[in-house]
């Protein structure tokens, strides 16, 4: 009788402990710092200031709103395009054709490249005097010295393409794995019923992929929202803050200005936004309710 009472607690204790160490403590400490003035360049001013950081953030900091809007645009465009292209690639490499193994390997390889290396590759490709645009200019397309990362009109698409290159394989891998779990009899039955290719895709493939799509888009949306490495190394958030996402702004405030209190407040804002949208998204999409 006695063992029964503590045994369940003992069994979940390791999980709780790990969660406390790796989740509760870091989050609590960020929330704690967000209520402080904490700037190592002016230690004499440090101390509790209540919600002052949040007041400044919401009412006096245009860059907060600007970076938030950019983050939203970035997430929607990136996740949307990655899903679309990832699905197309997954469907292609799911077919049987000669050289499929090689095609699959090539589709997945960018995923193995780190963000900083991806940037390295694309900075060379975009280099105004040696990259693709110089080559195009030599063929008479565009003008020499075009810097796509320096022009506010082109910096967004150029950054999007770079991240697409790395992100599409993620969707392709996940969706391909799920595609392969669809029983072939379903397609055969549909074919017997006279369903064409498109009808089979809409009525068999897509419903089957629903959960995989919801989960992968959610995961990817969170990652893209928090993307720092690629944008930081590619554009540094510029020119003129044109590509500054919220986490990049946090990095600038906390790392460059040493303003950890305000940086923490920005982080808390990002955390709350992501939490809210994740819950809303899972509710609306009825995730896991495939009966």
């Amino acid at each position, binding site marked *: 009788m006695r063992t029964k009472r503590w045994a369940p607690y003992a069994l979940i204790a390791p999980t709780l402990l790990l969660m406390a160490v790796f989740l509760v403590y870091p989050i609590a400490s960020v929330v704690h710092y967000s209520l402080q003035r904490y*700037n*190592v*360049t*002016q*230690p*004499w001013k440090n101390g509790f200031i209540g919600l002052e950081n949040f007041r400044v953030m919401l009412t006096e900091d245009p860059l907060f709103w600007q970076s938030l809007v950019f983050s939203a645009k970035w997430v929607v465009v990136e996740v949307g395009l990655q899903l679309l292209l990832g699905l197309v690639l997954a469907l292609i490499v799911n077919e049987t054709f000669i050289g499929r193994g090689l095609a699959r390997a090539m589709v997945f390889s960018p995923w193995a490249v780190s963000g900083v290396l991806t940037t390295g590759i694309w900075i060379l490709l975009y280099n*105004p*005097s040696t990259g693709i645009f*110089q080559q195009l200019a030599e063929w008479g397309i565009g*003008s*020499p*010295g*075009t*810097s796509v*990362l*320096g*022009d*506010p009109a082109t910096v967004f698409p150029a950054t999007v393409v770079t991240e697409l290159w790395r992100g599409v394989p993620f969707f392709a891998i996940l969706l391909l794995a799920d595609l392969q779990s669809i029983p072939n009899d379903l397609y055969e039955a549909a074919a017997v019923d006279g369903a064409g290719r498109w009808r089979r895709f809409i009525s068999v493939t897509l419903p089957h992929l629903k959960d995989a799509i919801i989960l992968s888009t959610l995961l990817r949306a969170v990652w893209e929202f928090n993307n720092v490495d690629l944008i930081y190394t590619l*554009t*540094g*958030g*510029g*020119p*003129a*803050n044109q590509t*500054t996402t919220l986490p990049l702004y946090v990095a*600038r*405030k906390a*790392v*460059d*200005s*040493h*303003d950890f209190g305000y940086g923490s407040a920005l982080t808390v804002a990002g955390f709350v936004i992501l939490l809210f949208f994740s819950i809303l998204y899972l509710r609306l999409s009825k995730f896991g309710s495939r009966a």
Partner: protein
Amino acid sequence: MRALLVVLALVLSACSSGGGSGKTTIVFWDNNGGPGRTPIYEELIKRFEAANPDIDVEYVGIPSSSVQQKYDTAIAGGSTPDVGGVTTSYLAHLVGQEALVALDDRVEGSALKGKLLPSLVETVRQTAPDGKLYSVPSSGNMDVIWYRTDWFTQAGITPPKTWDELVAAAQRLTDPAANRYGYTIRGGAGSVFQLLTEAYSYSGVAEFFSGGKSTVGDARNAELVGKIAALYKKATPEADVNNSYTQMVAQFTGGSVGMMHHNLGSYGDVTKALGDRVAALPLPVGPSGKRTVVPNPTDGFAVFKNSENQDAAWKFVEFLTSKESNSYWNEKVGQIPANTEVRDAAWIASNQPVKMALGVLEDPATVTVPAPVYLPQYSSITKTDSEPQYQKVLLGELTPQAFLDEMASKLTAAQKEWEERR
């Protein structure tokens, strides 16, 4: 009595350096570690250890881009080195955290007394709120225009003496079809630091603050910013708006740019790539003809408060700034030696950039305008806040005057706060 004191001092110093048993190890952080400088320090450390067999120096090379963060972390965690390379751009920040030892008495009682370039000592002192010497200066640096001598000869024009001549030369040397641009602008990380030195060299304004108000917004400063911004994309590569040091120098050494504003710190990079096709000019002057120089951050060595071997640490600092070491170091990196005994060294006469810079600094007509790097918010205002704004100026989204006024009002507020605290 005196003999007794000496004996006592000897006993004490013996105790503090590990009781005389075995070797003392001191940790030295190089604030600009890399393939260029690390070998120079390795050689100097070898010489030091040979002369001081009881002291071991452990070298740690830290890239300059992350050194301030490393120091912050070390101070917070109590793991600071014994000796560290520091520049005046973050010296105030370290002093504010009470991490360093004032070295005035040490210098007074050593062979360095009276041997350090007064202007550099003054720059270091001005950085600290209490005016003490928290780092022994080792090198002076100066902003220069690096230019391609061969391009100028080809075009048949003489190197510019005024900013208007520089603008004209930049336009003259530009030929986008041939991938040639007369000038390059640093538009990315580190941009505003350079821009301010350009603005003051043009305006001739001799003080950063006048009656407590920042002079950054002076109309003549704005005029210069406007002139530079007008060159963007016309006589400079379009990519310049994102240029940090690396990209800027790559364009210059890669042969697509005719003139570049940086400082003597890029001596190694540019001479290695371009040999005798490159030379240095002082920053041009403006219509007033006055030469006003915003001094570059001064490099030096600091002893950390947490060090348990401060005597050994000082010995190392003294060694690094001695005539011989200081000469060796500055010859290798192409900077202005802080030790005045090095002035007559043979290498200086044959080093055009250093000789030119010394000439400017020694000229009695030169006015130095120290930037307020002692302000805790200085880096935050001029980097985090202002660099993206300067990009807006280059892209034509913000006027030079509005840009400078915004920065000036922040600097004025920070200066006021600093005065009150002092």
